[in-house]
């Protein structure tokens, strides 16, 4: 899954014009920036923020899906969902490692998540209320993630770009798996079809919000584009997502919950209704239905596991001491 359009990174930087110019030339020549290379402080900060948000999103994203592992309605689905949630955890691990190359530890990032300082994708502040939501998350949420992440495979920062290649392959598998869940429901009993439609109704708008604010309201897009951390604007990616997804819904016989949605021949894409940005900002600022529960759950897991992590360290220390004593 994915961190939405970057929230609140500070791209300010203080280097000499000569340094910045040389750096920009490397970026423009499509050279990858590696962790040990000199880089502007603003570039480093933006990446730490973005990769951290992305990693946190993967980890928090395990919760709404984990909510259905114990109730998955067939053994095949149960196994597939377990494997998927495990993939998301793997992405988190990968991304924390990529962020660590920039000089910030996983512990620091975890603390920032728990204190509310670091953000994660707001989509996970919506609850999963039926089995269909597991399909919809794969289809729409992972689908939106792919739109965002494919360009990140060409991100100027090497470790992030390389991590994204593997992550995108797995996400694309998740997206197809999610679509297949929804297809099975859409072709199933009337109750199953209703479950699928209700799920689409609830997740459609939050999925569109995953791409972040309109370009006109996006504070830090320009600098990220210049540094080639970002390749497309929020609105461009959102449009691509809508154009790809609407025909999929039509194929399933499901109705996209937007009365203003219509094909615009001239632009070769769909026009859509206005997104409720009040809702977007409300949830980003911590007032969605699940914000508090998600952080509470993450903190509880962390605190309940403290004695385990302490024991592992203590044991490693004892082993080391015994080895030295034996030598």
């Amino acid at each position, binding site marked *: 899954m994915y961190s939405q359009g970057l929230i609140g990174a500070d791209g300010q930087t203080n280097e000499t014009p000569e340094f910045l110019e040389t750096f920009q030339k490397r970026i423009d020549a499509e050279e990858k920036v590696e962790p040990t290379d000199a880089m502007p402080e603003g570039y480093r900060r933006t990446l730490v923020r973005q990769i951290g948000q992305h990693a946190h999103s993967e980890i928090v994203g395990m919760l709404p899906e*984990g909510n259905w592992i*114990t*109730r998955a*309605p067939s*053994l*095949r689905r149960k196994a597939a969902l377990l494997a998927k949630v495990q993939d998301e955890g793997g992405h988190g691990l990968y991304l924390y490692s990529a962020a660590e190359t920039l000089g910030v530890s996983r512990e620091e990032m975890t603390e920032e998540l728990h204190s509310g300082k670091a953000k994660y994708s707001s989509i996970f502040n919506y609850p999963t209320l039926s089995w269909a939501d597991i399909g919809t998350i794969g289809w729409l949420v992972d689908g939106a993630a792919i739109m965002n992440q494919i360009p990140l495979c060409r991100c100027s920062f090497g470790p992030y770009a390389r991590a994204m290649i593997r992550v995108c392959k797995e996400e694309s598998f998740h997206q197809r798996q999610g679509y297949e869940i929804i297809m*099975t429901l859409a072709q199933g009993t009337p109750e199953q079809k209703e479950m699928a439609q209700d799920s689409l109704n609830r997740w459609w708008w939050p999925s569109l919000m995953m791409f972040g604010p309109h370009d006109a309201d996006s504070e830090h897009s320009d600098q990220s584009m210049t540094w080639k951390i970002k390749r497309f604007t929020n609105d461009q990616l959102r449009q691509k997502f809508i154009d790809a997804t609407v025909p999929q819904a039509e194929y399933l016989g499901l109705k996209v919950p937007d009365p203003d949605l219509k094909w615009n021949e001239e632009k070769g894409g769909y026009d859509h209704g206005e997104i409720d940005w009040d809702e977007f900002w409300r949830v980003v600022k911590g007032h969605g239905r699940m914000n508090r529960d998600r952080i509470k759950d993450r903190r509880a897991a962390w605190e*309940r596991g403290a004695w385990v992590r302490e*024991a592992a360290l203590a044991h490693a220390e004892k082993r080391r001491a015994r080895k030295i004593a034996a030598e």
Partner: protein
Amino acid sequence: MTVYHALLELADDHLVLGHRLSEWCGHAPMLEEDLAMPNMALDLIGTARTLYDRAAALEGKGRSEDDMAYLRDERAYRNCLLVERPNEDFAHTVLRQLYFAAFMHPYWIAAQDSTDGVVRGVAGKAVKEMAYHIRHAGEWVIRLGDGTEESAARMRDAVEALSIYVDELFDSSPAAREAEAAGVLPVRADLRTQWDKTIADIFGEAALTLPEAPYPQRGGREGLHGEGLGHLLAEMQSVYRAHPGAQW
């Protein structure tokens, strides 16, 4: 029919334990364990699926693996009591895993000579899985047993709580005895020596001792479970049962 029942016992063990492990998903003490536990759960559920499928074929009533898993009540479940024990804390969870894997590893080694082709197939794969479950859970038992004061105390509590469920692993129900006599499944009692050795080696490093269990708990193979299994099944079966006949 008796081989069918014996396979069902084995399948239920794997599904119930896999389900218990899956309850940890997203709530583990560290990210690495959030990856490791679903991995082990997947091994167990995978084995359960093949065994249900084989049992259903032997039964010959056209039931599916999902009918087996989702349409039987707790009295019809035949898993041993150990696997249904609640997660409690990480110490209980890794010890339960170690106890089970230390039993199943020699079991699958022996089952590679089964007269049943499907059982042989499962054994070939599961023997490798159980070896790493022993390694993973065993390493944790050692770290926690020989870690901090708190972790050692929690580990001793887990040993105290779970050891009364060990003897049942080695009992063969009448159905299992017939399957054993037919060469389909290994004789459970024969595996005790190996289990004792595996546990003694790990407990030696973990500064733990295996207590005597003068009053072992039994009954799972007759469908006489603790109260926790009913809740596990109610949750697991809820969606499937709410939509009879639906495809998922």
